Structure formats: C-alpha cells, structure tokens
C-alpha cells in the first residue's frame, strides 16, 4: 500500500471520529450548557476585579434601556389620561341643522335596535350665542372607525356631509400620532443607544483581548478556534449581564419615579423581552466582532506580544536619553513611544464625554422644539367660489373691500380673550406659477440652489425657483421685522410696486448674498409648457432647466428694498411684494391664503372649544360676501403642548447624558489599569537600577498630568466638533432630506456640561495614571509586611 492510499484510509478514520464526536456533542449539549454556565460564573466572580469594568458598563447600558422603556410606557399611559380629561369623544361634527339633528337622532335610535352599535355614546351640543348650528360629539366603540360611522349614519340617510365640518379629536388620532411619536422617538433613541452600547462594550472587550493577547495565542496554539474563544467569552458576558439586569431595572424605576414625581411608573409585559433581547444583541455583537478579528490572527503574532510591546509605536530612531532628567524626560519619551495607545484611549474614553455634550445639546433642541408656537386654529377664507356674475365688479375691485374687512376681522380676532396674535399669510410657490428669478452669479452662494441661465439676460446668469411669492402688508412686515434681522426698508414695497423684499436662507443656511439695492429679474410665463412626463422624470433644478429651454418668459426688473437675514427656512426663501403687485404679477386667482390664530401659552386646553366658537362668530362677516366661505381647522396645539411638556423629554435626555458620561471613566480606568499593570515590570527594572520611590511617584504623577492636560484639550476639541456635527445634522442635513421640520436651532454648547465633561476627563486622565502607582505601592508594602512577619 503506497502512502497516498494510506492517507485516504487515515482520512476516512478521521472523518468517522469527527462524526462520532458530533453525535456525542448532541447528547451532551444540555450538560455542556450547564458546565459552561458554571465555569463562566466561577471565572467572573472569582476574578471580579478583572471584570468590574464590564459589570459597570453593562449596568449603565441596561439602565439606559430600562429607562427608555419606563419613560416610553409611562408617557403613553399619562398622555392618554390627559387627552381623555379634555376630549372624551373621538370626533365632532359641526354645522348640523335642526333637520339634520332630527334625522340623526331618529337614525341613531333606530339603528341601535338593528345592528351592533359602532359608538359608545353621542351627544348633541345645541346652538348658543356663539354659533347658530348644532354639533354632534361621538365616542366610538372599540374597533370602530369614524368613516364607518359617517357612511352608516350620515351618507346612507341622505345627509350631505360636504357642508359639515368633521374634526377628529386627539383621542381619535391618539394611536396614529401621539403613540406613534412616542414609539418613533423610543425606537430612534433605542437604536442610537444600542449602537453606543455596542461601541463601548466592544471597546472594553477589545482592550481586554489586546491585553491578554499572549494567553489567547497559547489557547490558539493548543487548538482553540473562534468558536471556542467566543463561546467562553459570551458566557462570561452573559453571566455579568444577568447579574446586573435586575439592579439596573430597579435603579431606572427609581430614577423615573423621581422624574415623574410618582410611583405610578408604567410597566408592561413587553419590557422584559425587549430589554433581554437588546441586551443579548449588544453583548453578542460586542464580543463576536473583536473575537472574530483576534481569531484571524496567527498565534505567533499574539504570543510575541506578551507585554505592552504590542502597544509601542516605534520611534524609528533611539532617543538621546543621555544626561536627560529622570523621571520627566523619561516619561515624556515613554508617552511618545505609546502615542498610538494614548491616542486611542483618549479618543475612546473622551468620546463619551463628547456624546454627553451632544445629548445635552439634543435635549436643548427638544426644548427649542417645544417652545416653537404653532397656531391653535387655521381659518381658510375660501374665495375660490367668488361669484361676481350679474355685478359690474371685477375681482380686482373687491380687493379693497376685502382689505377693509381684513383689518376689521384682524382687530376683532386679536381682541378676543386668549388670542395672542394672528398671522395672515398669502403665498404661492414660484414653481407652481412656472416662474423663476434671474440673479447675478455673485449673489448665489452655492451651485445647488440655482441653475445656469447664461444667454438669457446679460449679467443675470443664474436662475432659481426655490422661493415663494409672498403678499406683504404692514402687519406681516411688522411680524418679519420682529422675528428676524432685516436689512433695508421693507415697508418700501407697500409704496413702490417695483420693489421687493427677499430672504437669503435655504435649509436654515445663508444661500444667497442679496443686498438692498441689488436688482433681480422675475419671470412671467408667456407661452410653452413642459410635458407631463418631464414632471415624472425630473425634479427641482432639472425642471427649471427644462422650463428655461422650452418656455418663453417675459421679465420684470425689481429692486431689492430689504433683505431678511437668518430666517427659518426649509426649501423655499421669500420674495415678498405688495398685495396689488402680488396679484398682478402672479395672476393667482384667490387673494387670501389662510389666517393662523395663535393662542396665549399656558392657557388651559379645555378653553379651546369655547374660543373656537368665538372665533367662528368673529369671522362670520366673511360668510356670504361675494359667495365667500370660512373653514376653521382645529390643531389642538394647546393640548399637544401640554402633552409634550408632560413627557419630560429634557429630563430624560439629561439622565441619558449623565449615564453616557459615566461610561467614560469605565473605559479610562479599564484601559489604563491594564496598561500600567503591564508596565510594572519596566518600573521594577527602574527600581532595580536605583530609581527612588519619590522619583517613581513623580513619574506616575507626571504621566497623569500629561494625560489630564491632553484630556482637557481633547474634550474641548471633540466636544466642539461633535456638537457642531449635531448642529449641522439637525439644522441643515436632516432638514434638506426631509427628516425634520424647519425649526432653526442655534449652535449651543452648555457651559456647565462642558465644565463637567472637562472635569471628568481631567480627573479620569490623572487618576487612572496615578492610582496604579498607589495600588502597587500598597500591594508592595503589604507584601513586605507579610514577609517580615514570616521572617520574625
């Protein structure tokens, strides 16, 4: 038999033994699990000091997850309660006439006997001195839908729903909007926290693997592969996670109880599987990725790095240490040798201080969001059906009449108790009227907000349609001047139809360099149109390019009377002109857009309904004039503000921020203690060659001071950069891609938070370098005392 055949036989035997082993493994699996659990528990608790950082990190991570669960469920429960206090019905039907009510009452009573009720109760609200019609409030039965009710009780009975005003209350939209907001918020925060948790645990685990490379090299030499290394590590981490999970849950519960000032913190069944699942994902990924990377290395490369030598970056040439001072020069050189290690440690640990600053900033942004006032009601004065047939009047001529009415209405509305102010807006987007403006290339800041238009008009070689034509009156200009920084004389547009007001901001960033006195050309379409398919395949600037190619325009030159700087804006800036000019230039058939009615902050949301009736009464004079009608939309803004404020968003963000900051010392101490533990041999050699105890203390102190100084600088740099990143992300990037609304945030670094993070970084930097010395000294003294007592 030649050796090839012998090998084949050998191979067969080998495969058989493998199969046998696999079968045995299957039978022994349950015993194996128990044995691994026992081994991992013993390893973790007998070497508690070694694993203390993992206990701390997992406790913090789990606290974050628990906190998120507790606050989310508590908010959902509290919000429902608050909504029901004000609106215990799902929708309200306004504008019901007496005959409608009679029909409905009949139908509701009759249907009750025939079918299963789709409502819990209903209530008719009779007319009073503020309204001339009936309203119907309906609380739906569980599982029933508003549309079914309307179809069943109104449409089928011949009641025309088109003239009725049907408004869903927050109770109806509760599950779609309020719960949705809470869940979205929790999911987004949960994802971010999971990523951060994986990052911190992975960093700690990588530090551990790095410091125990030699041991893992030996394991691998003896046959350990990834599976073996991973299984022992994951069991250890799971044991730690199971130990801390209950304690972190209780702590988070207590924190929530303090935050909400109640022990009624909501607990639901899904929390436990959610926390366990997230915990498992975090631990699994944090252990798997570094272990996989380690297992791909050769055992030899791991074995040779049995001291800190694997952390040393070669200086390329030797330092001239002759006649240099000890320990200061010595430690400076040492720091340079370990520069990569120090850089990694500084960045990894200080990253959490920076994240702390960012979280405080995000909390601040949420506060800004909450402070942004929205209109409680929006009244739409519908002039679409203005009927001037049979009269000699032109649409144009009724403008004056309407303007006089507007002034009277405005005064009437603003004099109502509880109304803070009204905002009368009338605008239309340039793209909707196939218009654009031509500007000089020196005005446009970036290429992305305009397209080339050379050859059309000399000097005006860029075109943009990312703006709204806005009709301005004195009141609107007053509001703009109050809100933003306005350069020039905006009131000039009311006198001169050749003047306009422009804003210079897009996506909350200055996008144009307009100055008062500059001239622009505004385009009015003469003829030509794009194909429908163009709108399907192109968008934004591409559409404008096509329009410039295919359509003919006439241009009117305007002088910029004033520029609004820093206006809050998403994808459109303002081109403001007088009402007359607006109507004349845009040919928009209706004059009035909408009237936003803002309510005084802090007003009880239960007053909203009575206020609505007063407003309705106030706007009554429009109704019927030239066939005009008024529709009022409720926004439930007051209730929404109350709900948002009860969420304790800022408080929750602060607690999350503090917990994230606590991860910083965990990384600092874990990394540094292992590092200095391995430097002990070097220190003992120095001691052997005559280094005095004071010199060694100075060495450690000096190392600590270097780290503290670097830590303070890195904290400021990282803190600033990350906060600026968040500022750009929320203010411009997310806004540009439509993830957030157009709220404008100021760049902000909380000074107390910055001071705290610098203090934490500096203290950790110093103490994590100095404590190994004092621990080592105590250990040496104890050892000496023990030996002495032995000798005696």
């Amino acid at each position: 038999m030649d050796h090839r055949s012998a090998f084949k036989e050998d191979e067969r035997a080998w495969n058989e033994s493998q199969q046998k082993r696999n079968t045995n493994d299957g039978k022994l699996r349950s015993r194996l699990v128990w044995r691994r659990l026992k081994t991992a528990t013993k390893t973790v608790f007998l070497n508690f000091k070694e694993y203390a950082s993992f206990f701390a990190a997992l406790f913090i991570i789990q606290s974050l997850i628990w906190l998120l669960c507790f606050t989310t469920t508590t908010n959902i429960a509290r919000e429902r309660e608050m909504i029901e206090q004000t609106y215990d019905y799902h929708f309200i039907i306004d504008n019901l006439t007496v005959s409608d009510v009679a029909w409905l009452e009949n139908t509701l009573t009759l249907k009750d006997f025939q079918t299963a009720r789709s409502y819990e109760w209903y209530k008719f609200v009779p007319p009073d001195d503020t309204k001339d019609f009936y309203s119907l409030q309906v609380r739906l039965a569980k599982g029933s839908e508003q549309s079914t009710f309307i179809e069943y009780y109104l449409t089928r009975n011949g009641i025309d729903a088109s003239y009725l005003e049907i408004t869903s209350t927050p109770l109806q939209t509760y599950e779609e909007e309020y719960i949705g907001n809470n869940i979205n918020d929790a999911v987004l925060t949960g994802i971010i926290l999971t990523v951060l948790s994986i990052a911190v645990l992975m960093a700690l685990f990588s530090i551990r693997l790095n410091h125990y490379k030699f041991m893992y090299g030996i394991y691998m030499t003896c046959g350990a592969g990834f599976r073996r290394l991973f299984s022992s590590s994951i069991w250890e981490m799971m044991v730690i996670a199971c130990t801390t999970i209950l304690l972190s849950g209780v702590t988070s519960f207590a924190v929530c109880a303090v935050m909400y000032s109640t022990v009624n913190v909501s607990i639901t069944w899904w929390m436990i599987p959610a926390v366990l699942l997230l915990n498992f994902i975090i631990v699994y990924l944090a252990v798997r990725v570094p272990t996989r990377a380690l297992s791909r290395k050769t055992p030899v490369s791991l074995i040779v790095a049995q001291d800190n030598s694997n952390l040393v970056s070669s200086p390329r040439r030797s330092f001239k240490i002759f006649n240099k001072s000890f320990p200061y020069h010595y430690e400076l050189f040492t720091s340079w040798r370990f520069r990569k290690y120090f850089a990694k440690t500084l960045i990894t640990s200080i990253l959490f201080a920076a994240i702390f600053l960012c979280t405080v900033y995000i909390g601040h942004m949420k506060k800004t969001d909450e402070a942004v006032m929205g209109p409680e009601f929006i009244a739409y004065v519908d002039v679409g059906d203005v009927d001037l047939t049979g009269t000699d009047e032109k649409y144009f001529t009724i403008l004056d009449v309407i303007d006089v009415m507007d002034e009277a209405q405005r005064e009437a509305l603003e004099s109502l108790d509880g109304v803070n102010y009204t905002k009368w807006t009338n605008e239309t987007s340039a793209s909707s009227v196939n218009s654009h403006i031509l500007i000089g290339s020196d005005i446009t800041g970036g290429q992305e907000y305009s397209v080339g238009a050379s050859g059309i008009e000399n000097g005006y070689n860029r075109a943009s349609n990312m703006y709204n034509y806005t009709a301005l009156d004195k009141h609107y200009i007053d509001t703009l001047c109050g809100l933003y920084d306005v350069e020039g004389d905006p009131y000039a547009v009311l006198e001169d139809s050749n003047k306009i007001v422009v804003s210079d901001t897009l996506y909350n960033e200055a996008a144009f360099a307009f100055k008062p006195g500059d001239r622009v050309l505004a385009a009015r379409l003469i003829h030509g149109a794009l194909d429908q398919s163009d709108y399907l395949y192109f968008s934004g600037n591409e559409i404008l390019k096509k329009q410039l190619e295919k359509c003919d325009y006439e241009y009117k030159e305007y002088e910029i009377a004033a520029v609004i700087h820093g206006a809050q804006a998403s994808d459109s800036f303002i081109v403001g002109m007088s009402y007359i000019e607006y109507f004349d230039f845009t040919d928009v058939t209706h004059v009035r857009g909408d009237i936003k009615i803002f309510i005084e902050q802090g007003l009880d949301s239960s007053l909203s309904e009575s206020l609505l009736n007063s407003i309705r009464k106030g706007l009554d004079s429009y109704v019927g004039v030239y066939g005009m009608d008024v529709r009022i939309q409720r926004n439930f803004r007051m209730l929404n503000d109350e709900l948002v404020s009860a969420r304790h968003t800022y408080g929750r963000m602060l607690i999350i921020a503090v917990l994230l900051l606590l991860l910083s010392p965990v990384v600092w101490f874990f990394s540094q203690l292992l590092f200095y533990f391995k430097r002990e041999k070097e220190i003992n050699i120095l001691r052997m060659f005559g280094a005095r105890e004071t010199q060694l203390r100075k060495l450690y102190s000096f190392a600590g001071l270097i780290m503290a100084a670097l830590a303070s600088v890195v904290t400021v740099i990282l803190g600033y950069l990350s906060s600026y990143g968040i500022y750009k992300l929320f203010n411009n990037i997310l806004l540009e891609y439509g993830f957030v609304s157009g709220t404008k945030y100021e760049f902000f670094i909380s000074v107390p938070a910055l001071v705290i993070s610098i203090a934490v970084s500096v203290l950790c930097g110093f103490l994590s370098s100095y404590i190994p010395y004092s621990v080592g000294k105590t250990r040496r003294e104890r050892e000496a005392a023990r030996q002495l007592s032995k000798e005696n």
Partner: protein
Amino acid sequence: MKDDRRVILETEDVIRQYHQYDAVVTAVQRASIRVFEGEFVAIIGSSGSGKSTFLHLCAGLDRPNSGTIKIRNNEITKMSPDDLGEFRGKNIGMVFQNHNLIPQFTALENILIPTLMCNRPEFSYEENLKKLITTLDIADRLHHLPSELSGGQQQRVAIARALINLPQIVFADEPTGNLDRANADEVLRLLLETKEVLGQTLIMVTHDMDIARQADRVFKMDNGFITPWHISKE
C-alpha cells in the same frame, strides 16, 4: 527505490516575508522538505537563519506568503483559522524555547489547556496525564505557578502540555536552549521516550550539535534556505 513510509509533513516552496518599515525581510525562502511518520528531524542553523519561523509555519502558527504545507495530506495553508485551530489542537504539539506558560495558571492548568480547547472524547485524558506527569517527574509540582518552578520544570510542564492531546507530530523550538546540560539531556530523553512510546514524529529546531546527532535526519537553514545536512554520528 520505492519508499513505503508515510509522509506526515510536506512543504513545497514555502516563502515567508516580513515588512519592516520600507524593507522586506525574507525569513524563509522556497523551503521544501518531506518528513516521514515516526521520524526525528532536527533543523539547525545560526541565529536569525529562519529556523523558528519555518517551524512556526510548519506547525500552523503562522501563515506563509506562498507555498504549500501539508500535514497528513491536509493542506494547512488553505484551512480557515477555525479549522486550522481545531486541526492544530488534535494533531500538533508545540514546545517553545521560553516555555510560554500562562503565568496566572498552575502547572496542571497549563497542561490541561489543550484538553479544554480541543475536546477529544475518544481519549482518556486522566490516564494520559498520569503517564505524562510520572514520565516527566512533575507530580509534586502540579499545583505550583510557573514562577514557582525552575527552568527545567517549566520546560517539562510545557512538554506535558504539548503531549496531553497525544498529537501525531511534535514541533519543538529549541526546547533545551535555556537549560543546562543535565536538564537539556533530561528533556531530550523525555521527548524521545514519548516519541518512541506514542509513535510520534518529532521536529526540533536546535543549536545543539549533540542533539542534532541523535536525529534521524538533519536539515540546515541558512539565510532562509533549507537544505538536507549530513552530520557525523560520532
């Protein structure tokens, strides 16, 4: 003449290079050898000639830049890290010059590491352990930490660790390099004895010509090149 002996290790054109800053150092150059089952092969050569690197490559502790290495006809250079780890645990024993014992583990724990890493139910570890500690004479030092053992004792523990899984092939990287004459002779005697008893193949890197003389075949490494070397048995 037809050779009926079974080849246990076969290397072909193995090259190992290291990058040091801008320079490339070739530690092993096109090394091709064939080792038969049950042989004792010594590899000699001056310091820095690439002996240890070649041994590490053969033992699957390092990866070559090119070339093939086969153990029992299994091409270890093509194995995944996991498969190679398992293969190493079952077939290969490794003894290092500086013992490489884990300092926080006792002698017994160090010996048993391979059994943890590579569970082979068909073997009776207890029986093998008893035999090894008796043969290596370390029964009374089993519960001592490596720092509490002499150099010779540490090397014996390292040998026990290499042999606990009854590997078919043992690689020894200057196992007697740090020992005095008497201890060196003792360690060699133990390695050869277990080799004979267990029918293992022993591949040893050594500086010691006395040891090399006892080998069945000798290879010499010079500047990364390996060549068969005749050495007088006298």
